[in-house]
């Protein structure tokens, strides 16, 4: 059965995903959300561990269902020569191949860039590794917080005067996937102009360096190494999270004297405006601990939502620091498409997180949940590769399709 038309800017682009866990699958998902046809290569003999976390049913694993919407699943046993031959046939029909296997694993499968280029000369191969594919440290592996630590990002996150702690431990993989997806699309443009494919070697560590690029560049220019600075900002004060009633927090970022005066007005603290310690930005930066303490005293008993609305109404950017409960119960996020509902092959529906964009016209449909293992075997083997149903049955019987 042909796949339904979904629209979107990448309609007509086919991506083969040989990925596991998070960064690679997230790259595939972004391309699928942009309209590409993304086929995830899987097998029981070499399962994405996300299908195993959180239960025994590999078709209803929470992590896997949360990541892999709008992608197809095809089974192929990559430990068999016959399976590898089928995989090579799939590569021949694809524009882009993405992997995030361990260093050296693609080469051992006979899927180095030279190998895949021999299958399809204009293939775009995207390979995501912690430190990149080759080089003196290319053998090293790790998890997302390792990327952030190595990339110079973690060192910049922490409460002032304490050990730098880094972002929340879950941060990083998805950003790496987004970088990989962007580079893949750039390569499509190069191919359109020149007919040439290429190998894209993505470093997860460098991706997170790029999230602090100006800090790294400032160091190169000034030779002063930036430090973890809590919520301090050299050009804004007040700039921080202030306590409100019920243990909640309100983020406030003040960039001008008008905003400062408006803040004091809403807080009923006109005296602060006349306080010499806070007379201008330079004074407020110098006296930041006093400033933050004075403000915390004024916000601590206030209702977060009411105070935020009152501040925004006077032009002061103030937004609640959102807990997981706040986020999933936020009406605006539901109404604006930040969350979507998808349906899976068993007819179950599930809310998922949408992409960071809306497009018009021709936004790609996001309607289908993560695939069952092998849900698209028929499509791939029969429609794409042109096998008969008897041939496919035989492959299944012999566990080449497993």
């Amino acid at each position: 059965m042909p796949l339904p038309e979904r629209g979107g800017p990448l309609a007509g682009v086919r991506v083969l995903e040989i990925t596991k866990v998070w960064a690679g699958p997230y790259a595939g998902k972004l391309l699928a959300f942009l309209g590409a046809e993304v086929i995830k290569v899987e097998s029981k003999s070499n399962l994405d561990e996300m299908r195993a976390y959180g239960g025994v049913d590999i078709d209803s694993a929470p992590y896997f269902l949360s990541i892999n919407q709008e992608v197809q699943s095809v089974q192929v046993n990559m430990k068999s020569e016959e399976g590898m031959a089928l995989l090579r046939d799939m590569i021949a029909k694809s524009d882009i191949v993405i992997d995030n296997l361990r260093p050296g694993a693609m080469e051992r499968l006979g899927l180095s860039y030279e190998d895949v280029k021999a299958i399809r000369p204009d293939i775009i191969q995207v390979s995501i590794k912690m430190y990149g594919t080759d080089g003196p440290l290319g053998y090293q592996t790790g998890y997302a917080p390792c990327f952030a630590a190595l990339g110079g990002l973690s060192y910049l996150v922490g409460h002032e005067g304490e050990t730098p702690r880094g972002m929340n431990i879950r941060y990083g993989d998805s950003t790496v996937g987004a970088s990989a997806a962007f580079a893949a699309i750039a390569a499509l443009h190069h191919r359109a102009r020149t007919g040439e494919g290429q190998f894209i070697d993505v470093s997860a560590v460098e991706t997170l360096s790029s999230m602090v690029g100006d800090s790294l560049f400032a160091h190169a220019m000034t030779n002063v190494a930036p430090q973890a600075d809590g919520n301090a900002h050299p050009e804004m004060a007040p700039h921080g999270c202030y306590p409100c009633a019920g243990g909640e927090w309100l983020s406030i970022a003040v960039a001008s004297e008008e905003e400062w005066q408006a803040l004091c007005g809403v807080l009923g603290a006109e005296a602060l405006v006349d306080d010499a310690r806070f007379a201008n930005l330079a004074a407020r930066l110098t006296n930041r601990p006093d400033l933050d303490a004075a403000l915390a005293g004024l916000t601590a008993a206030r209702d977060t939502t009411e105070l935020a609305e009152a501040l925004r109404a006077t032009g002061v950017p103030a937004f609640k620091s959102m807990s997981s409960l706040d986020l999933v119960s936020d009406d605006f996020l539901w109404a604006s498409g930040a969350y979507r509902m998808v349906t899976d092959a068993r007819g179950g529906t599930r809310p998922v997180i949408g992409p960071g964009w809306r497009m018009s016209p021709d936004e790609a449909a996001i309607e289908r949940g993560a695939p069952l293992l092998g849900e698209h075997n028929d499509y791939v083997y029969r429609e794409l590769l042109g096998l008969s149903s008897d041939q496919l049955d035989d492959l299944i019987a012999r566990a080449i399709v497993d």
Partner: protein
Amino acid sequence: MTALIGLKIVEIAERVAGEYASKLLADFGAEVIKIERPGGAPTRVMGPFVRGESTLFKYLHTNKKSVVLDLEQATDRAVLDRLLAKADALIDDHAPIWAEAHGLNREQVAARHAHLVHCAITPFGQEAPAEWQIARPLNVMNAGGWGYHTPSETPADKPPLKGAGRFMSDYEAGLEAALCVAASLWRKRQTGKGQFIDISEIAVQLSRADCVLGRILAGEADAGPERARYDMGGPGATFACKDGHVFLVMTTRAHWTGLCQLMGNPDWTTAFPADWLEFHCTADRVAEFRAGFTGWIVTQEKDAVAEAAQKLGVALVQVNTAADLPDNPQYRHRGYFQTLEGVAHPTVPYRMSASPVRLASPAPVLGADQEEVA
């Protein structure tokens, strides 16, 4: 020859989010014309400064051209239309009310320039209330959930944090915008048609939380006010070592065996079951582990211990500082920093065999390319 050569992009953005999006495209060879207000872009007056120049502006505007236009004036506004008529994409990050006042909202641009890929980056997207349209990176990091949950294991009385540096949420949104613009330009190659792209900085933050927030959204993990809801549990954390800091992640029996070997199997480790990380990872045990490990790791030097750990399959890595990276052998090998005017510029995390990013020109002086509109 790099990937986006031949594509022409007009940047009217004035914040880091939009400026970074078009930098990513410019570094791939797209011709990016930055429109600056008389007196210069706001990021030109943001520090730190070297010899009177903003390092921030310099970083964000490699490979771009600068044209000064006063969009408040009808004649200059007409010049912008002439540029847009010849351009492939327009990148903006102003509030919708500004765009409308300047004849640059979705409908106004589409009516005159149906061929254009028009990308607008705003904190909450185009549909958000007007008073939500000014949100700074600190606000975005908090409104999107990462702030509340950063760092991991933060006690309730410590404030949420803004993330690393000043602009993390801008870089995330800028990357998303570059991704969408590149995809939409691909569509334009096939169809000749433009498209409007509405980037929400908050939606990008949520998307990056992906399966962590996604399981909570689906009810498979509990939502709640606790700061630890995004945490993973386990002993993973930053530790001080002899010459800086390291980060350790440990989740399996193999990690534990490897780490014990790395430490020379000290006596205190015998109190831990071999499979404690998988099946007996209590808060008490994590605390006990950290107490023992802290005493050992503080005697170690980060490069040597990280290398030894890798060889034993242990994910123990250096917490690098900005000063560590230019000399990192892997960064040198990959050429992550490219030298332009004698200064090492951070570049991009993807090495491309056929169309590599190349820094050809430093950030322009104000109005350097005014002849483009002469």
